């Protein structure tokens, strides 16, 4: 058998794989949309935000409500104590009046 024929067979196998994945994407998205109303109602009842993907610390569980100094207060020695903390970028603190600086006074 020629190598190009073998390649064609491989391309067909890949196409089947991609099709299976695409069908899976459609089915899961459909399921997600069906449960959408349910999730919306849940959010109306429980009006606090954020997903419970990590519940180790309060500023990770409800991190969009946490203030900028919370991690320091929970564990002053380390900038980030809980391992899951490195996963998230800092929340939007645009409502704070100014930057928080931790430099010694003499250096300002």
């Amino acid at each position, binding site marked *: 058998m*020629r*190598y*190009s024929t*073998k*390649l064609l067979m491989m391309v067909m196998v*890949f196409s089947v*794989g*991609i099709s299976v*994945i695409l069908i*899976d*994407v459609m089915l*899961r*998205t459909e*399921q*997600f949309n069906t*449960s*959408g*109303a*349910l*999730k*919306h*109602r*849940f*959010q*109306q*009842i*429980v*009006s*606090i*935000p*954020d*997903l*419970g*993907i*990590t*519940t*180790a*610390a*309060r500023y*990770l*569980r409800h991190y*969009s*409500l946490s*203030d900028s*100094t*919370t991690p320091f*207060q929970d564990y002053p020695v380390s900038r980030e104590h*809980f*391992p*899951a*903390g*490195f*996963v*998230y*970028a*800092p*929340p*939007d603190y*645009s*409502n704070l009046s100014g930057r928080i600086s931790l430099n010694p006074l003499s250096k300002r």
Partner: protein
Amino acid sequence: MAFRNLLERQRNILDYSLQNLYRRKEKTLFILVIFVLLISVISSILFITGSLTREMLSTVSELPEITVQKIQGGRQTNISATYLSEIESIPGVEAVDPRVWGYFYLESLEANFTIFGFDLDTLEESDYEKLITENPKFASGKESNNIFKMVVGPGVYRLFKKIAMDDTFLFFNPNWGKSIPIDIIGIFKPETELQSVDLMLVQTEAARKILELPTGQYTDLAVYVSNPEEIENIARKIKLHYPELRTITQSQIQSTYSSVFGWRSGLVLSGLLVVIAAYLVLIWDRAGGLSQEERKEIGILKAIGWDTDMILSVKFIEGLILSLMSTILGILLSYIHIYWFDAVGLREVFIGWSTVYPSFKLVPHIDLKYIMLILTIAVVPYCAVSIVPAWKAAITDPDKIIRNGN
């Protein structure tokens, strides 16, 4: 006829390229494995972060327009009921909902739970039907007048079942002297697991007792505003009148979610840096030049009459097949890893030290933009570095290459 000849010529070149890859199968396999690993690492991170962001953003519109917290000494503290009527009187404010919520750390299980105070009697029958599975041990719990009742998340229920407290949970704190028993009247359905996993929806009066919240004090205030144009203005007014209060608007939470797994997040950054470094090493090795054997082969091909462009076509096809195949395989494998095997290995990074966590049954988020980005970054540079050394060898005198091998 001419077209057929052209097609046959291209097919022969393709055959030759594939034969080349097969002849050096150890090397081909090695590059393929490294390439697949790199692509699957980066696409796994993109898939999981994309799905979580999609989940987060899906219900953000239902959140209160403004959340008001009281800040004292840099920390959030309880907010007094006196603010309630004052904020309510601001024109444009539809309603102010004082919330009682907080956390309960259970030392024996090393688990952190979220307690949210809610008047369970106000839940409609349809809410019970849609959202909650009745606890078989308290089939008529929702009708009871008992204030000590709650609905728990699936994660909480699983833990309580382990310690045989799946009917009534005894909240205990040494300061209280006695425990507070709360009946578990229902469990949130698995569809809401990502949000409700650690949640205890407790009758407000009981929640107040568990959280030791004095009368007239609340955790924070949820401010509802009917006109979206007025949200920022009202938030500004609240801050202006009460500098001790902090406001978090719905759009601010939305922008937090949009950038939660952005470049500034450690996970994305570390994943990217590792992949880029490994990819550069791979490219560097390819760009470093051809082996003596490969150069000799090009010399022989030239000597027997092959054109430079034919040799370049062979090398280009070799690079294209290898990189395209690795990219597709890498993306398929990472999809299977994230969505079929619930991101095993990667989910532990998100879970961290949590004891209560949801199963990672996520909604797929395949962003075509990212797929194109991965394809472009993986395929184009690899093909380019496959061609350049071959071109260098192909323009050298064949006699010199065959004799000297360089």
